[in-house]
């Protein structure tokens, strides 16, 4: 088993005819992801990579009732609307790749999604992959290996780097989720951890954090309170980042007296989580905790 997505997941791609949308649709198909339909307003009735395109998610869902998941490549100004459309069509999982969505839009659609029982991953995230089963995102598929380590990450490229080094060391992954780099995201570390806790395939967790916010501290608290009981190895990016400057991501900024590297690492270690100094130490630490 894996979490959230597997070989049974059926996907609608919103923004499938755009540059990014079509590029990644091709790569997801190559990976084996079951994409059943695409949506681009005004392009209904056409096909791309042999996948039917619809004007609305409503129509796509009516023609493909088995669809349960959407991935969104729509530009930021239209992405919010696309998310509501996905939620209203009853999809259970919506992966929002789009970055630069205004935060007041995000808080509203995340609140709305919760009231409708839809899980949102992102925005501004690389997506989710259950290696060997389904890839719903923009990550390079070849760096992942099927296995029993779950990964939750606030970063994109860094996740590929770490998955790559794990795979090369023979450590496979159950599911890898990039939760997203924005300050407000649909599914958080602790919510992902709840899922991993109940996934029998997942034997350990790698947490890839960043400066800013308190996601790592909340994860530590969950471990402390024994709500998460599997071994955890963590890495936090931004050890040398200055205070008050936004490091690329909107979420990666040390402010309001919180979110510093030092505090995060201390908190994680205080509850027994192993924290790697560099990404390349992670395989060794994972092997230790899995012994």
């Amino acid at each position, binding site marked *: 088993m894996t979490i959230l997505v597997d070989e049974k997941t059926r996907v609608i791609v919103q923004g499938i005819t755009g540059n990014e949308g079509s590029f990644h649709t091709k790569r997801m198909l190559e990976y084996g992801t079951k994409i059943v339909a695409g949506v681009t307003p005004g392009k209904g009735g056409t096909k791309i990579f042999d996948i039917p395109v619809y004007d609305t998610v409503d129509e796509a869902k009516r023609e493909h009732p088995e669809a349960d998941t959407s991935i969104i490549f729509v530009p930021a100004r239209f992405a919010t609307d696309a998310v509501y459309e996905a939620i209203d069509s009853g999809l259970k999982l919506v992966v929002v790749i789009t970055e630069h969505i205004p935060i007041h839009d995000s808080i509203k659609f995340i609140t709305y999604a919760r009231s409708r029982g839809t899980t949102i991953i992102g925005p501004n995230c690389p997506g989710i992959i259950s290696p060997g089963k389904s890839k719903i995102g923009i990550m390079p598929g070849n760096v992942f290996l099927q296995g029993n380590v779950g990964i939750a990450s606030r970063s994109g490229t860094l996740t590929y780097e770490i998955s790559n080094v794990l795979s090369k060391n023979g450590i496979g992954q159950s599911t890898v989720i990039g939760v997203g780099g924005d300050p407000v995201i649909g599914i958080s570390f602790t919510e992902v951890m709840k899922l991993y806790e109940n996934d029998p395939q997942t034997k350990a967790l790698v947490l890839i954090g960043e400066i800013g916010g308190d996601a790592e501290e909340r994860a530590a608290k969950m471990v402390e309170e024994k709500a998460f009981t599997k071994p955890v190895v963590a890495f936090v990016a931004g050890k040398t980042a200055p205070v008050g400057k936004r*490091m*690329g991501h909107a979420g990666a900024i040390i402010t309001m007296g919180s979110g510093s590297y030092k505090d995060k690492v201390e908190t994680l270690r205080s509850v027994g989580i192993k924290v790697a100094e560099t990404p390349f130490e992670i395989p060794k630490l994972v092997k230790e905790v899995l012994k």
Partner: protein
Amino acid sequence: MKLFEFEAKEIIRNYGFSIPESILIKKGDDVEKKIKDSGIEPPLAVKSQVLVAGRGKAGGIKLVKTIEEAIETTKALFETPIKGIKPSYILIEKAIPHEKELYVGLVIDRNDRRPLVLASQYGGIDIEEIARTKPESIIRYPIDPFVGLRSYEARLIGKRIGVVGKALGSFERFLLTLYKAFIEYDAELAESNPLAYLDDRVLPLDLRITIDDNSLYRHKDFAKTEKERLGENTEYEIKGHELGLAFVELDGDVGILGNGAGLTMTTMDLVYGFGGKPANFLDMGGGADAEHVKRCVSFLLQYPKAKKIFINMFGGITRADEVAKGIIMALNETGIKKPVVIRLTGTNEEEGRKILEEAGIEVFNDPIEAAKVVVSR
């Protein structure tokens, strides 16, 4: 994007919340004439319009008792750097005698995913300091983003930080106004600190609003002050901003370029770990093409603090061959020679490596090794 105090106050004034009379002096104005013509009467607060925190302590706010003193002080403040920055604007306000100062602010609660009101009976000091020294004094009141802040909630919050009588109605109106600004201007932060608590009303002595950068396309009214706002950044940060780059200046000598914020920060951390010091943070972002990579690399080549450059790239959406092409283009076009260490892996790695090696540039696969080399050069 942080708004200047005078911009934030203009917003709530336009929303109908009455605040003290004031005049705004722009650098280059005839200070004497403008102050005298305004008819404003002392006592006055003369306030340097800079975006850094702790302006008061740093000498950016002066109370004056005569018009002459106001003129003199204004001229002096234009020449006084506050934490390194000289102001482009000075705001002169009627000084309002008051005894009590409150704190009230609106932020987005990352964990709750909703607006959060923070309020405390202790204003005038940093909220972080209040949180440290008097945590029990801070009221945290979450708002349903669909329902919004209700009048009764604003009153409830006011009561809980000790506002009573007529001033409670004023606090209610102020907080509703601040919330309106927070929502309509897509703010990440809207706070008044201190908020003066008078007998019959409250008054925002300071007011800070930070607009979510992602929503700036909905708020174009602040373009006119963009240049002055950027004055808060370093020369190269301004240049980077103009080029649309995610660039942050640092104090070391190793220029850093990565793809993805997490990887770029980790690259900085690696350099630091081997005894080096990053000269900057620069994230080329996801899916950069050769043209964008060229722009980034050229920028670092011309950036004097970077004595050498470390490019760390893990191909995913971004293709290694595009990155390689961009690097070559930058080196050729600028003609600037600096040690450049490149780590390249992932999508189209082979093609990228070939392009660089044909140009005589060494390529690393292992970032650790690359980091060691760049520090040693």
